[in-house]
């Protein structure tokens, strides 16, 4: 499609982009409520891994003053007094419902899944007068089929779609009925909307930028749009894009080519402290394998491995923050090799009589196979090992993670010593045959 100076305005209009950001309201809590009718109208909260902090609150819980991220122990009395329903994270359930939301969205237009509860829809080919109608139909479909309420913001750039989405959420909370949809592009209150968006909530403004902008007197999205040039000129392409997006010039397309990942991390806090080296070895090897699956998914090789081990920072005992790194001579994706290196690093840093609480494995310096440098000293039969790994991946994919595993992991799977606390997780209604929803006849 070549550009033509003689194009009519009408044709140029067709080249405009339009995005609809679909965001599930209080997603984890909405999932719990969707499959348990006894929770209707009750305040619900979902806790993080290890039941530490609140990661999702229902509207009723929010109204009680429970803030995002607050540790459970701080609101124990509030919970008791108001009969707040507390749930441990049920990732299988949330993941399954998220997949279903995506599947329904894809029945309408091109979808770019942004996170577990947010997606950008390509509304570029939708007639201007039909956009709100379509968004309302999509919202109704998701509510009728899954019981998940969503908010939809429509605008000509992704950044503005986010602003629009925040606006509809805020307004509905304040009591205005938008039926969950707001078309920013069609609105004649754009300035008002931008002014109501606090600078810290603008997509792409991080903590560092926030301080700088506040000191410059830029406290909302409107001010950033109007006067952000000086700040952007001192920044990278990211800041410049942000200003352009706020002004309606789309720089981030739907499904823009994502860069290959630079690192793969698997990091977990243990359910309780561990001082046995055998148990930590199991954890480290399993974490290495799990981080490696992310690398393999993108067909990359690992150039360096780091492991981190730390004690419980909340206990009044001598602390240890241990870490070690190994740069590999030859980039690899072979499980045996990486597990071996991780465990060797563990040997290097190990100290007895410490109660460790968290371990992380970081695989970095990721490269594409074509950039492989061959080390003349490399003796391994990589082809053979690669085939073995492929077979293992296939078995794991079709029969589950635990169908086949390395000997050193045995401890890990059998004793489950590191398993996170999840004392009040709801049943995995949609992913486990033995935990199905019950209906009374």
């Amino acid at each position, binding site marked *: 499609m070549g550009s033509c100076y003689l194009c009519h305005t009408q044709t140029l209009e067709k080249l405009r982009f339009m995005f609809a950001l679909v965001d599930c309201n209080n997603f984890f809590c909405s999932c719990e409520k969707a499959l348990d*009718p*006894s929770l*209707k109208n009750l305040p619900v909260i979902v806790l993080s891994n290890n039941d530490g902090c609140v990661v999702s609150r229902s509207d009723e819980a929010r109204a009680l003053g429970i803030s995002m991220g607050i540790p459970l122990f701080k609101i124990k009395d509030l919970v008791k007094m108001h009969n707040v329903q507390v749930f441990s994270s049920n990732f299988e359930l949330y993941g399954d419902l998220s*997949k*279903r939301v995506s*599947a*329904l969205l894809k029945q309408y237009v091109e979808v770019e899944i942004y996170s577990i509860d947010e997606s950008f829809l390509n509304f570029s080919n939708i007639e201007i007068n039909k956009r709100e109608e379509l968004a309302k139909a999509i919202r109704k*479909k998701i509510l*009728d*089929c*899954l019981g998940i309420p969503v908010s939809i913001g429509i605008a000509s750039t992704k950044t503005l779609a986010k602003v629009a989405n925040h606006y509809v959420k805020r307004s509905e909370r304040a009591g205005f009925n938008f039926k969950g949809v707001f078309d920013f592009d069609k609105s004649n209150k754009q300035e008002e909307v931008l002014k109501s968006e606090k600078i810290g909530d603008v997509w792409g403004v991080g903590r560092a930028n926030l301080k700088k902008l506040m000191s410059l007197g830029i406290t909302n999205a409107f001010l950033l749009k109007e006067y952000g040039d000086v700040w952007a000129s001192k920044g990278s392409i990211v800041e410049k894009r942000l200003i352009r997006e706020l002004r309606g010039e789309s720089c981030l397309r739907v499904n823009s080519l994502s860069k290959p990942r630079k690192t793969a991390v698997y990091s977990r806090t243990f359910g309780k402290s561990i001082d046995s080296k055998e148990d930590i070895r199991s954890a480290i090897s399993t974490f290495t394998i799990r981080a490696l699956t992310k690398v393999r998914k993108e067909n990359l090789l690992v150039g360096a491995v780091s492991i981190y081990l730390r004690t419980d920072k909340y206990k009044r005992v001598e602390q240890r923050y241990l870490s070690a790194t190994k740069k590999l001579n030859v980039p690899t994706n072979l499980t045996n090799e990486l597990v071996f290196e991780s465990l060797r690093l563990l040997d290097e840093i190990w100290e007895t009589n410490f109660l460790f609480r968290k371990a992380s494995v970081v695989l970095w310096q990721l490269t594409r196979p074509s950039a492989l440098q061959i080390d003349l000293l490399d003796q391994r039969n990589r082809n053979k090992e690669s085939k073995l790994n492929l077979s293992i991946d296939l078995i794991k994919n079709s029969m589950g993670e635990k169908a086949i595993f390395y000997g050193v992991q045995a401890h890990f799977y059998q004793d489950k010593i590191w398993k996170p606390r999840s004392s009040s997780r709801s049943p995995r*209604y*949609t992913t486990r*045959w033995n935990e*199905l*929803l*019950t*209906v*009374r*006849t």
Partner: protein
Amino acid sequence: MQSIIFFESTVSCGFPSPAEEFSGISINLNKELIPRPASSFLVRAKGRSMENCGIYDGDVLIVDRSLEAKSGNIIVAELDREFLVKRFKKSGRDFFLMSESENSFSIKITDEMSFSIWGVVTYVIHKL
């Protein structure tokens, strides 16, 4: 002119199997029973009040939430914060939930009740 059938696969010796072109086709229960997976859920029935229409205690039901319930359908309903499975009946502007057993009874939906149709039951899976 004689036409010769050309077989794509390699032949080690003897004739290739004419069944070869049909290999790989099998019945996929998921596809047949759950044509709309995104909006379909599996639930377990508890109780005996629907035995007359083939739903026994412990049976698994396939429920499709994208279908619009018609009078006469077996549905899962949300009634006063509980899931029920009953036959749905519409009579004029009145809604009823009927059970299907020896002691058949029906529930008339009133304004005081919190009621909604959750989904339509499409299949019952009964273990013998």
